[in-house]
């Protein structure tokens, strides 16, 4: 699936939820799953400074694609990260660099990703794009 297809399927998945509670319960469930990152990368170098919840992000190239792993100390943040990564991880730098994150808005989580929300998610998304561009540059050399 392309990034866009994955995003669309996510949007569809969320249309199931009539109630905010079901939606958040699902996100919380996702957030409770195993750490999404190797413990050794939960270091200051991979910490994204958000004000309230801390977010760690690690990226590596595998067969021409970027694989992201991440974590957060807040479970809801972690759940949203897991949604994000489901869409953008394991894609080529080029596709990630061009990806459109507006699906977040469509699944009704816009507030979480407003730049005014100091939960580290916005910085994480910026970081994802930065990684993609850096890997793109490296490849083109």
């Amino acid at each position: 699936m392309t990034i866009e297809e994955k995003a669309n399927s996510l949007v569809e998945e969320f249309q199931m939820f009539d109630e905010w509670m079901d939606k958040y319960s699902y996100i919380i469930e996702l957030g409770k799953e195993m750490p999404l990152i190797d413990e050794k990368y939960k270091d200051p170098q991979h910490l994204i400074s958000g004000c309230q919840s801390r977010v760690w992000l690690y990226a590596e190239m595998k067969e021409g694609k970027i694989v992201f792993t991440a974590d957060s100390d807040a479970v809801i943040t972690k759940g949203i990260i897991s949604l994000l990564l489901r869409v953008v991880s394991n894609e080529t730098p080029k596709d990630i660099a061009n990806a459109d994150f507006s699906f977040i808005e469509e699944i009704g989580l816009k507030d979480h990703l407003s730049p005014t929300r100091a939960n580290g998610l916005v910085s994480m998304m910026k970081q994802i794009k930065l990684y993609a561009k850096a890997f793109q540059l490296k490849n083109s050399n």
Partner: protein
Amino acid sequence: MGFNIDKIRADFPILKRKVYGKQLVYFDNGATTHKPQQVIDSIVDYYSNFNSNVHRGVHKLSVEATTAFEDSRKYVAHFINAEDDREIVFTRGATESINLVANSFLSLINKGDEVLITSIEHHSNLVPWQQLCEKKNAKLKVVPVSDDGNLDMEFLDNMLSEKVKIFALSHISNVLGTINPIKEIIAKAHKFGIPVLIDGAQAIAHLKVDVQDLDCEFYCFSAHKAYGPMGFGVLYGKKEWLTRLQPYQYGGEMISSVSLDKTTFNEIPYKFEAGTPNVSGALATVAALKYIKNIGIDNIAKYEDDLLEYATEKLLEIDKMRIIGTSSEKTAVISFLVGDIHPYDIGTLLDQMGVAVRTGNHCAQPLIDNYCIPGTIRASFAVYNSKEEVDYFIEALKKSLAMLA
């Protein structure tokens, strides 16, 4: 006057607001309070009827605006029982008031001198002093806090000395709610000739402030945390101290005469008020203080105490509830954690149910670090909050905890 919560609530138009289709329950009053219609009306009235620049105008509007502006100063002086209205400097907020004093102390602090603060200070009453000390090679000393949220008075006693050039501390902690025994502390400091600045940002709307009784050298607050407008604040300073301090910003009414070679500054308080003053802000602040006066600050304190007690009891029924700040002397601020659930998670779910609380370090990072926690959830009350709202909040909290379990 009797205390009629329904009547009070009706004064605040925003309380009718719904969020996500649910009735707003606003418990983020420590960050900012809402404004009664009286305050909003005073702004509309000013801009619709006698808006003007003040001082030195010969025309009627200017005389009216100036009179109203200077009457505001008198009212504020009266409200905190200052001896003289020249002791009231209008600023942009508590943060600016503190920065003004810290900046003006640049010339009064020397290498090796000490500045005393406490470990419960808001960044606004911490960083200005830290930077002052850095610039002047002085020492920042910090009175520690005990586990219950009270200042450690034994430490404090040991830290007072002639070396201390100023002691800056909060009247009430914005995280813990602790009411510091400032009258006693000020008297102790005076024994060593130490001037004391009180950060009253969290106090002015919640208990009686009498600067002459306290005998503090400086007292600061913001209007927006006391039902008043944003962008307005007060610095009270004893006449002899204000006279002694250097101006902070230059331009406008703070100048008495200028030539290209030399400038003479105006008298207090004007010498600290550079630029066109915020007349509307002053009038709206007075409207807010009159609103408080009208209900009666003691009635407010009593009512909020009841809310605090009620909410605390209800919270403590919850499993793994951990209240941070358990001083016997506190105002209606409750910081808490539940088990090791991250505050952000609880705050997010409460928000979905219409309950506005604050989560995080509340701009008091050293204090939070001191407790080794990731922050807290803070519910802080104002005069318009009700027991019904507390009940709803407790229900919402329980629902959140169930979801996060």
